[in-house]
C-alpha cells in the first residue's frame, strides 16, 4: 500500500471505530434506562405485594398494569438490542448488495436518542420498491450517520429531518430534507469531517447540497471490484 492508501485506511478505521463507539454508548445508555424502569416496576410489584400481605385490599388491575409495562419495556429494549446487532453484523461483508432503505431505517433508529436529546425528530421515508447498491454496508452506515450529524447541526426551525433513499442511475441517492440556511456538506467536528471525507473517498461517493431543494444528498455508486481483488 502506498502512503496515501495507508492514511486513508487509518482515517476510515478511526471513523468506523468512533461511529461504533458512539452507537454502542447510546444503545447501552438506552438499555440501562430500560433496565432502570424494569427494576422500579418489579420493585413496585413487590411493594404492592408486601402491602397486600399487611392488609391492603388486593388490586389485581394495578398489578396487571405494572406487569404489562414491564413487558413493554422489555420489548423496547429488545428492539434497541436488535438494531445494534444489525449494525454489528453490517461488518460481516465488506462488499455486499445493500437494501439502502433498510440501512437508512437502521441508522435513523440508532440515532433516535441522539435526536431526542437534541429535541429533534428524524424519520426515514419508505421508498416505493427496492433500492439496492453494491457497497460496504458498515462504511455506508457510518457515512449516513455522519451525514445525519451534519444535517442535525443545520436543521431548520421545525427540528424535523426526513431521510429519503432513491434510485439514481448506477447507484442510489440518500436525501436528507429539513435543513435550513447555508448548509455546509462537510459540517460537524473536525474529526468527523475528516472521517466523512475518507469514507466518501473509499465508497466512491459524493456529498453535496442540492441548491434547488436545500437537501443534503449522499450519492453512492455501485462498487467495482478492484484489480487486485481487494475490497474496501
Amino acid at each position: 500500500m502506498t502512503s496515501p492508501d495507508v492514511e486513508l485506511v487509518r482515517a476510515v478505521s478511526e471513523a468506523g471505530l468512533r461511529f461504533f463507539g458512539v452507537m454502542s454508548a447510546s444503545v447501552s445508555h438506552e438499555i440501562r434506562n430500560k433496565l432502570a424502569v424494569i427494576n422500579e416496576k418489579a420493585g413496585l410489584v413487590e411493594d404492592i405485594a408486601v402491602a397486600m400481605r399487611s392488609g391492603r385490599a388486593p388490586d389485581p388491575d394495578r398489578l396487571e398494569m405494572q406487569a404489562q409495562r414491564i413487558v413493554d419495556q422489555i420489548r423496547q429494549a429488545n428492539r434497541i438490542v436488535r438494531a445494534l446487532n444489525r449494525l454489528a453484523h453490517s461488518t460481516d461483508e465488506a462488499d455486499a448488495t445493500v437494501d439502502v432503505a433498510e440501512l437508512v431505517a437502521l441508522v435513523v433508529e440508532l440515532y433516535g436518542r441522539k435526536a431526542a436529546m437534541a429535541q429533534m425528530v428524524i424519520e426515514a421515508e419508505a421508498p416505493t420498491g427496492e433500492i439496492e447498491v453494491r457497497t460496504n454496508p458498515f462504511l455506508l452506515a457510518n457515512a449516513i450517520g455522519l451525514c445525519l450529524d451534519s444535517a442535525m447541526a443545520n436543521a431548520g426551525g421545525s427540528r424535523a429531518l426526513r431521510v429519503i433513499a432513491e434510485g439514481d442511475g448506477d447507484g442510489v441517492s440518500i436525501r436528507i430534507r429539513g435543513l435550513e440556511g447555508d448548509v455546509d456538506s462537510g459540517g460537524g467536528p473536525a474529526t468527523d469531517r475528516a472521517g466523512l471525507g475518507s469514507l466518501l473517498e473509499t465508497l466512491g461517493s459524493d456529498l453535496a447540497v442540492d441548491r434547488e431543494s436545500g437537501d443534503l444528498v449522499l450519492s453512492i455508486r455501485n462498487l467495482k471490484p478492484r484489480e487486485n481483488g481487494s475490497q474496501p
Partner: protein
Amino acid sequence: MKVLLVDDEHELVATLAERLAFRGVDAQWATTGRDAVALASRESFDVAVLDVKMPRISGIQLKKELERIHPEMKFVFVTGHGSEEDFRIGSAEADRYLAKPVDIESLVETLKEVVSS
C-alpha cells in the same frame, strides 16, 4: 421530607415516586426542566433527584435554576451513562451521585443523609 424527582423517562420517575410513597417519602416528579422549575416555584422541596442528561436542559443547568428558587435545596444526581465525565461532573456538582438502576433502599438512605447533612 419532600423530594422532587426529575427525569425525562416518565415511567421511571412516576414509578420511583410511587415506591418512595410506600416508604413514607413525599415525592413529586417532572419529566422536563420547565415542569420542574414550575413545581419548585409553587412549593418547596428538601432535595431534588436529577438525571444528569436530559433533552433541552442538563441536570447541572437545572440544579442552578432550582438553586435560584430554593438556595437551601440539596441535590442528588442520577445517570444512566456511567461515563468518567459524568462521574466527575456529578460528584463535583451534587451532594451525591448515583448510577442507574438505583436501589430504592439506598436511595432512601441517601436522601435522609443528604437532607440531614
